[in-house]
């Protein structure tokens, strides 16, 4: 206590801050970084679960997975998923936020906001089960609609050509917390900027193009980063809907890692695949951050 009393106020503030930050920092190290580091360590061994770590095999786990055709097929599927996510679903919450922002009547805006937020509370596995029913070849709504439109019927989850799109399609409903973030960004635009724009004669589309979208840019960019990470880590939806089939056409790296661990009982190879995913994601995100920074400058 004497030590504390002798400290100057600035140091006391710093130490107090560190004390409050310490639990979160330690938990982050323990629950986030330790598994990454330990997993990396495991990837260099033919991991023995009874007498860990087992035989040190250096990069053999990596060369083994790099040789596997199924591993590269999972990566190929991942790239298609990322393209589909950005092409079909990423822009939907942006449009929803812009439309909500244009609504004048408060009760309509609030009702629609709540309505768009509801998808966020439905667990992903429940969503997957519902869409499996929607996609049922015989009595699913999807085929009823396509039949009514004269487009015939499709084996949505059984056709390798369609299955990835079918898995991503539920995201087109949009909404969720992401839409709320975009809306918050729009609400943060100062009124005097709108006033100035109106004085300059901006119409609605010009307002969106020159005022609203630039203000949302940083939020959209951050969300794009999160979306890329989530796409690369995609596991739950395809796992529940198809198990990675048919014939591995919807298998993600996450499912590949799970199967390597659960079916092939190889913790070392599963860890190698996980670490490789981590490196690829880190490089992609770093590259995007540099691009974003240079554009901002």
């Amino acid at each position: 206590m004497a030590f504390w009393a002798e400290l100057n106020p600035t140091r006391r503030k710093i130490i107090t801050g560190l004390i409050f930050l310490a639990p979160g920092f330690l938990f982050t190290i323990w629950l986030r970084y330790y598994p990454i580091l330990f997993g990396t360590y495991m990837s260099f061994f033919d991991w023995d679960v009874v007498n860990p770590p087992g035989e040190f095999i250096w990069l053999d786990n990596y060369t083994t997975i790099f040789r596997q055709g199924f591993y590269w097929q999972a990566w190929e599927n991942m790239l298609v998923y990322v393209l589909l996510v950005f092409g079909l679903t990423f822009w939907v919450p942006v449009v929803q936020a812009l439309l909500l922002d244009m609504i004048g009547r408060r009760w309509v805006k609030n009702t629609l906001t709540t309505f768009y937020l509801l998808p966020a509370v439905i667990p992903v596995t429940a969503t997957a089960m519902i869409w499996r029913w929607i996609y049922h070849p015989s009595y699913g709504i999807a085929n009823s609609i396509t039949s009514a439109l004269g487009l015939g019927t499709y084996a949505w989850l059984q056709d390798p050509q369609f299955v990835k799109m079918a898995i991503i399609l539920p995201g087109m409903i949009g909404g969720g917390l992401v839409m709320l973030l975009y809306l918050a960004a729009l609400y943060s635009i100062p009124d005097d900027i709108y006033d100035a724009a109106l004085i300059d004669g901006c119409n609605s589309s010009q307002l969106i193009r020159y005022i609203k979208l630039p203000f949302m840019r940083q939020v959209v960019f951050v969300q794009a980063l999160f979306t890329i990470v989530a796409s690369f880590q995609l596991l739950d939806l395809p796992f529940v809907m198809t198990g990675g089939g048919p014939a591995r056409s919807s298998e993600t790296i996450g499912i590949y890692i799970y199967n390597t661990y659960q079916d092939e009982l190889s913790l070392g190879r599963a860890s190698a695949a996980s670490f490789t995913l981590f490196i690829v994601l880190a490089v992609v995100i770093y590259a995007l951050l540099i691009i974003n920074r240079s554009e901002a400058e």
Partner: protein
Amino acid sequence: MKFKSVLLVVMMVILPLSIVPGAIAQDAEETVELVMWAANTESEFDSYWGDLFDEQHPHIEVSTVVMGGDPGNEYFAGVARGDAPDLVLVSLAKFDSYVNAGILQNITELGEWDDLANFDQEFLDGLRRDGDLYGIPNRSFPMLFGYNQALFAEAGIEGPPTTWEEVIEYAGMITNADEDISGYCMLSREWTEWWFQYYVWQAGGELTVQNPDNTIELTFTDPGVITAAEFYQTLIREELVQSDLSLDFGSLVSRFAAGNCGMMPFAADWVNWAISEGIQREDIGLTIFPAGPSGNQSAANSGDVWVINPTISDAQKAAAVEYIQFYTGYDYFNSFFSDMANRGAMNPEPMVRTDLSLDDFGLPAEYSDVLAQALITNRPEEFYGKGDFATYVDYAVQQIIADPTMDPMEAFAEAQELAISDGAVDTFNAQFDE
């Protein structure tokens, strides 16, 4: 004198009290705790036998964790996490991979087990590696061919199919798309190699060949494999299977139980399962597999075995042996199957103990005839190297299911080439290098 009296009284009180903690500590040392995983919560029957075990083995305290599903499938993950049970039932499908992963206790090392002489020796031999035993048989489930007798009667079909041609013909008579009834249920989403291998054998083919030195040769393009694939494609092209080919295995059994499926491969222990999902026992028809073009009607036998965690203490291993001996003993099995028979849900499964007979439990005559035939026609094991090559067979089968117009030779040749280029064949054969 007074002091001496007081001292004497004090010592007389202290002395017995000093023995008590020692006695308690000694009892605590002798009590062994065992953790085991179970699929379901305890039934009245389980509770009775659990109490009996506790009574006969007061030094063993058993904690049962209800896992749901198949706890044996989670055993490896438990060992990896460090919270694996001390003993668990594991299906034969997982047994080989678990032995190879080194996560099963060598039971031979734990001492003599006289009662093993009363077990099916062929089953036991399948659980040995280099002469050492790694599991104790619990139950045996031959793979049979199930058919819904009610749907057959409705369609005017008198008996089960005896050939592949009859499967197609009868499936056509039963299929009713409007009511979501399929003549045949096909395993198409996962583990497709499990049922597909039977059709390969029935077509006179083999997926792999075990060489005399135990190395493997892949024969995915064997004519029998292609014939089996074409049979699958015929069933799909003629729309005789379930419309939703993304159903998992459990959903297929549910479809059968709900009367939405006319025929499907059916393991002996699924009778109970299907009855619990609503079908009447008398509607479950069982037969051996219809003959393929070669006249062969083979499937494989499965089952589950008790295994012990090798990381537990010696005292726990000894306790685990006592537990398994109790639950694979004559008295328990006799009571277990009597209870099953009394509930009218007797599975047509062969006894793993040779001192028990199915005849003792009133198995319906049609089931016992089928069982006797299956024990002749079925193989004791699945295809050689299944643990390492199932994934490639599954890949090819799923391709021909997804595209029933695809040339199966192309699909299976690609899968075989993939297995070779992945190094899977070299890795498998390397274990037999001298």
